């Protein structure tokens, strides 16, 4: 799940000098310690090279082979599995689901996360308690989240009981069991788990804004609205970018919440690529097709990761 980023602390200040000194004295490369350092890192380099990069390539190759039973078959068949996949109804449904899920999930995380962070930043009594409560779902697994929300979103009980108590008995959504909109309900459960973490990121961002800036804005006569609109929100853009990448990644690989909510659901209404990949591969033994789905997820992820890492590298070089 959230194997996520924390951007490197204190990087800008102390990171710059070793780079420069290495450049100035390139012969330091030859020093025994530098070679030792490389050798110490080597096992990890090999592990990452094989288990990550090698395996990605291997998966891609499998996606173009003819492996569709429990016995591996690496005969090359070109794009056969890919054409099959693109025309597959379940796959098409998955793409629709991911789009809706991403909109719902990213939207909720950013809106809830930013709002709560802003409110908590107003010198609140009991801030620590609120913060602890808001963030703790992040320590809860996707499976537990899914299992719990599965019951909270049962049409006959859970949240609908609360609606009934509030005199809204006419409002009885079927939540994740709904064929049309089920996937939005999944995004609600997932956002419960993740939005507190987003709040924490925004709060850290807010705390990082120098007080002088706010004071200067106040002196210039900026009201609260203008302060946020013209100063704070633009200054928090890097946070929003990070949040966007993290939640976007989550939207690509969403698996455990969907599985625990009973996915793929009626008519694959709450299916995801990850669940489809798992069932196709390890349930139906269509390994090549599964590899193609895995590769699609990889390509989607690259679209998000590359700009993010490029921006990180720019930071590192600065």
């Amino acid at each position, binding site marked *: *799940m959230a194997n996520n980023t924390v951007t490197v602390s204190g990087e800008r200040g102390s990171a710059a000098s070793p780079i420069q000194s290495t450049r100035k004295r390139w012969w330091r490369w030859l020093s025994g310690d530098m070679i030792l350092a490389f050798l110490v890192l080597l096992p990890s380099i090999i592990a990452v090279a094989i*288990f990550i990069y090698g395996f990605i390539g*291997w998966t891609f190759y499998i996606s173009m082979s003819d492996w569709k039973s429990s016995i591996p078959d690496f005969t090359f068949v070109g794009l056969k599995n890919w054409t099959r996949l693109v025309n597959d109804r379940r796959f098409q449904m998955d793409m629709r689901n991911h789009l809706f899920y991403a909109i719902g999930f990213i939207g909720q995380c950013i809106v809830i996360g930013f709002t709560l962070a802003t409110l908590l930043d107003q010198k609140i009594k009991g801030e620590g308690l609120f913060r602890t409560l808001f963030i703790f779902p992040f320590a809860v697994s996707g*499976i537990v989240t899914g299992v719990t929300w599965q019951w909270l979103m049962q049409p006959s009980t859970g949240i609908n009981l609360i609606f009934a108590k509030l005199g809204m008995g006419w409002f009885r959504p079927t939540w994740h069991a709904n064929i049309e909109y089920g996937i939005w309900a999944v995004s609600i459960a997932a956002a419960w788990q993740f939005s507190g973490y987003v709040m924490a990121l925004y709060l*850290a961002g807010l705390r990082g804004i120098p007080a002088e800036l706010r004071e200067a804005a106040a002196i210039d006569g900026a009201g609260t609205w203008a302060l946020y609109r013209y100063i704070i929100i633009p200054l928090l853009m890097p946070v929003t970018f990070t949040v966007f990448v993290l939640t976007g990644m989550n939207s690509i690989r969403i698996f455990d919440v969907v599985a625990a909510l009973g996915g793929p659901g009626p008519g694959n209404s709450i299916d995801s690529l990850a669940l489809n990949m798992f069932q196709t591969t390890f349930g139906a033994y269509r390994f090549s097709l599964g590899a193609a789905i895995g590769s699609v997820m*990889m390509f989607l992820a690259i679209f998000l990761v590359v700009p993010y890492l490029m921006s990180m590298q720019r930071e590192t070089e600065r």
Partner: protein
Amino acid sequence: MSVQRLWTRGAIYLVLVAFALYYAMPIYVLIITGLKPYKDVSMLRMWELPQGLYFDSFTTAWGLVSPNFRTSVMITIPAALISSMIGSINGYVFAKWRFRGADTLFILFLVGMFLPYQGILIPLVLTLQKLSLYGTLAGLILTHCIFGIPITALLFRGYYASIPNELMDAGKIDGCGFFGLYRHILLPISMPAFAVVLLWQFTTIWNDYLIGLVVLSNPVQAPVMVAVKNTAGSFSVDWNVQMSAALIAAAPTVIVYLLLGKLFMRGLLAGALKG
């Protein structure tokens, strides 16, 4: 002014309390349902407090998931420890021994953090089978350690980068080499970073479902999250038992978070956005 301010403050607290209820609601339901006796478990009275404390559903749930809970402990603790140690030395190299190409290498490491594991699962299974590690605890520990390399390196690198190079230079003058500097200068002050990374890895590995499901698929042996999912998917298990099983599985990470929340936060935030 002051009346308006009072209203604003009131509204702020109201929203905060509402969200506190929203975040607490699922756990509230998990706890009260687990504490009800079987006869009181009713869909229509989901929100009502139990009439006294009964631990029947916890006992039943524990009977269902305890072998898996033990498996999870046996995987999570060694995997978190080993990957933290690997991360510490890697972070040290990345922060203080920047050989040519180290930064590019670091970025390439980070890609691993973002990967959807579906893109590497099939080769992973084939490789673990070749190494006769498929379906074993050791295989799962190894997998978690490898997939933990990027994040642990990132966290430790950040911590070590914040330690002044003058300290390192002083060590060099005293005759410390590569290992000496690590052993005598960085390691003794690494405890905060270790705490953060251990906590992070513990949470991630404990909460993992996908890798456990693929590598240790045997239901008896599988990690606890797989067992909870199986319980929840089964029509023969009552829903209060399912919820108790979920609560048991969530307990270790939630308790650790509540006890060490500050460290947890430090890991997430320690200058999170300064970079």
